[in-house]
């Protein structure tokens, strides 16, 4: 398999998307061989470029100026319409509040039965197809299997396993993967001139999103936040309960929403680093490479089981926050659990 960065340029549908050689090649081949499926399902983690790829695919299908290339020219009328979001034959259907409902599918079924305005292909993109209601998914089945000619449905989803199997089996599957940490590290080093240390740290912490990594590299305050987070958790061990709770309250006041997600992310990487120091001592895998000495020292204070338990506490806290639990309570509980002596 080709690693990111080594993709054949003829197979790139979308320049800006990194590390998705497989998906790019799949889609490019469909266009080059004119084997356009009537339904495709692009699935993979959040923030890796599913929608962008789907749009590039739609653009390439309708582009009049691309000649032999597989990617859209960007300058013909179709491409310009698409870029402005006004293309009459390319639609993006998004979940209405929480779900894609049956009415949205009914509208789609009606809309695709009309002739296309100008273009060769009508492309309907369903974002978050895993959020379709059961009725909606079922009512999509017939049209998905047997759509009018020159109609393409593109579904994007994070979780393949929560889509109705009968829907999945009607689609051409295109898998997008997390951008590997090495690829991001390499990219940061070579293309963006980030220091070696920062490239390592941010490539781990960004959660597979190049954009997030770049942002963290350019924003000094984000990195200071990381150091502060780690320091605060290091200070906790063995402190009396009231100090622990005060620290938790402080975090709750200063970090909210996305910042809190990032905060927990940082904590989990810290304990992961300790776990690696405690077990294999493979320093190439330590994320917080600038804190290596501290990690080594701290790792001796915990047992392996204790570190695993702490990581599980963090995972649980993340799940609870995702389920709209009260951040203050979740943090209190997490901090008490983390600060307990081994």
């Amino acid at each position: 398999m080709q690693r990111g960065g080594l993709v054949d340029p003829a197979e790139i549908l979308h320049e800006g998307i990194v590390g998705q050689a497989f998906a790019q090649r799949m889609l490019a081949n469909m266009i080059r061989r004119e084997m356009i499926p009537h339904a495709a399902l692009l699935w993979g983690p959040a923030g890796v470029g599913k929608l962008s790829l789907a749009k590039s695919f739609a653009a390439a299908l309708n582009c009049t100026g691309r000649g032999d290339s597989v990617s859209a020219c960007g300058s013909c009328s179709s491409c310009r319409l698409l870029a402005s979001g006004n293309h009459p034959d390319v639609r993006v259907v998004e979940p209405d509040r929480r779900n894609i409902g049956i009415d949205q599918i009914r509208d789609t079924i009606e809309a695709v039965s009309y002739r296309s305005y100008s273009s060769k292909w009508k492309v309907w993109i369903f974002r978050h197809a895993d959020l379709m209601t059961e009725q909606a998914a079922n009512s999509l089945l017939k049209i998905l299997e047997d759509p009018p000619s020159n109609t393409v449905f593109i579904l994007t989803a994070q979780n393949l396993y929560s889509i109705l199997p009968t829907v999945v089996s009607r689609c051409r599957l295109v898998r997008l993967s997390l951008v590997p940490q090495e690829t991001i590290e390499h990219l940061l080093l070579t293309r963006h001139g980030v220091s070696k240390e920062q490239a390592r740290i941010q490539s781990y912490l960004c959660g597979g999103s190049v954009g997030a990594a770049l942002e963290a590299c350019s924003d000094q305050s984000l990195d200071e936040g990381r150091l502060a987070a780690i320091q605060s958790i290091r200070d906790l061990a063995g402190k009396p309960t009231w100090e622990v709770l005060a620290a938790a309250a402080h975090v709750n006041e200063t970090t909210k929403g996305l910042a809190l997600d990032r905060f927990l992310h940082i904590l989990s990487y810290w304990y992961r680093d300790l776990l690696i120091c405690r077990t294999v001592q493979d320093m190439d895998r330590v994320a917080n490479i600038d804190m290596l000495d501290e990690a080594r020292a701290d790792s001796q204070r915990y047992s392996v089981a204790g570190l695993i338990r702490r990581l599980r506490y963090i995972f649980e806290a993340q799940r609870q926050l995702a389920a709209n639990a009260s951040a203050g309570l979740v943090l209190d509980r997490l901090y008490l659990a983390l600060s307990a002596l081994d």
Partner: protein
Amino acid sequence: MSYLSFYRKYRPQRFEEVVGQEHIVKTITNAIELDRVSHAYLFCGPRGTGKTTMAKLLAKAINCVDGPTSRPCGVCDSCRGIVAGTSVDVVEIDAASNRGINEIRELQEKIRFAPSVSRVKVYIIDEVHMLTQGAFNALLKTLEEPPAHAMFVLATTEPHKIPETILSRCQRFDFHRLSTADISGHLKSILQREGASADEDALRIIALHADGSVRDSISILEQCYSYSGDHISVADVILVLGITPTERLREFVDAVNRRDIGSLLQLVASLSSEGRDFRQFLQDAVSVYRDLAVLRLDSNLATGPGSSMLSRLSPEEAQALASRLGLDECLYVIEKLARIDTELKTSTQPSITLEVGLIELVESVDSRVDVSQVPDLQSLSRRLAVLERQVAQLIRRAGSSGLADSVAASSADDSSQGETRDDQSPCRAETDDKMGERDSVDSQGEAGSGLTITDQNELDRLFHEILDGVRARSVPLFAVLREGRPAFLRNDVLVIGFPQQYCSFHMGRVREDKNRQVIEDVASLLLGRSVTIRALPADDVAQMAPGISGKQGQQADKPSACKPEDDPLVKSVIEALDGRIVDSDL
């Protein structure tokens, strides 16, 4: 029409082309030949097994100009119209988007009109399980007695969602998942018609992955075809499907065997840099361990059709792997992997989750507890309660009455206790026999060798446990029994006293045969011997009590009856260890 997906392009157009549903093809073609076509069919089965295809074939067979025939010509107007979906008399209804009662009413309006060109109007209702309750009921009459010129074919993947009343009006056909061999054969013929080729193993992997569904398998095939071109190799299939390559699985088993955390972390890094789906990896790893476990049980099974992943290893290699692993280790690893999988489902940090899970797996695999060796806690605690009681009796009796008697009584308890039997050693069984004799001799010699407890503290504790047991069976009974107090237990008779104010109702309820039985059951279970319950007014009990203490006094008068060396348990210990008694003190 431009490019058509393979699964639409190669949809069977004749009954002979249908793969793997011989039982249905035969029945339906016979029905057509013999002119016994029913007016309502229900096709059920998993996705992609040929339900809609069969429905369309049936419509063609009935309406073909040469027909009704089991070999529709495929060239007449009717056949072509049905294939293209333009026939006016073959109506394909998508029940999922037309699921209300109004759509059914509309259908009923139209069904009355005779077919315009064909012989029979065929209504194919696909995804019929999505109809609403009202729609189903509205359909009932028409489904039972449609006009002579109309028939129904209902198709669904979920027959359990269809009301009984609909089911009973249809001839039901169940479509089966297809075998791996059937599917790979079918894929091969499609590739031939496309002028392409594939590795034999590549097709087998596709077929395995499709899980019995032809449409899935053809979709995957097409995906591979559009990815790799005219020749489909095993590597292409593995890449397109995102399944884990054999070498990675081998590395995994190896690393777990060596308890090598470093290699596991390396493995996670490689999986991630190859862009593989972690959950798919876990599934594949589970199936490897599943196969190893099966191989461990019976080496013939693993080479059979049920094996999935091991078929990618050579038999010798698989055998070698399996021989190094215990069955319980395989099961333990599977359990842990399944746990990581559920964690991954909700995780926002898949790689850490996987890393941590695998580290924990390796760290804990050697200290695992073999689940099959641990009896359930409840039965353990019950056995413990019995033992404690017996010890308490022993101690008390050693001080008051004959030691031999009490041990005889308590070991008689033992033999009546089913649960303690299985761990009886032969030696123990022997002593039991002897004691059985003693016991019968004793009971001849002295009436009332039953269990006796008079110590109020112990009685209260016993009564408390009885109450707990009773509550588990009947809360109302617990509520009335609670008002009583245990007076004494003599010769297996437990006397419960009730204060004056509870004598009428509460005591009455406890005395009822049915209720008394429950209490006796609970008490017998706890004491390990059959016990009788007697409920009496507390005043009466108080009058009886002196008699007890009198008897206890009598017993206390003859402690000489007990010598340690007479005790059968002590005797057997002495015999077994060839020892002697130095001192005795209880």
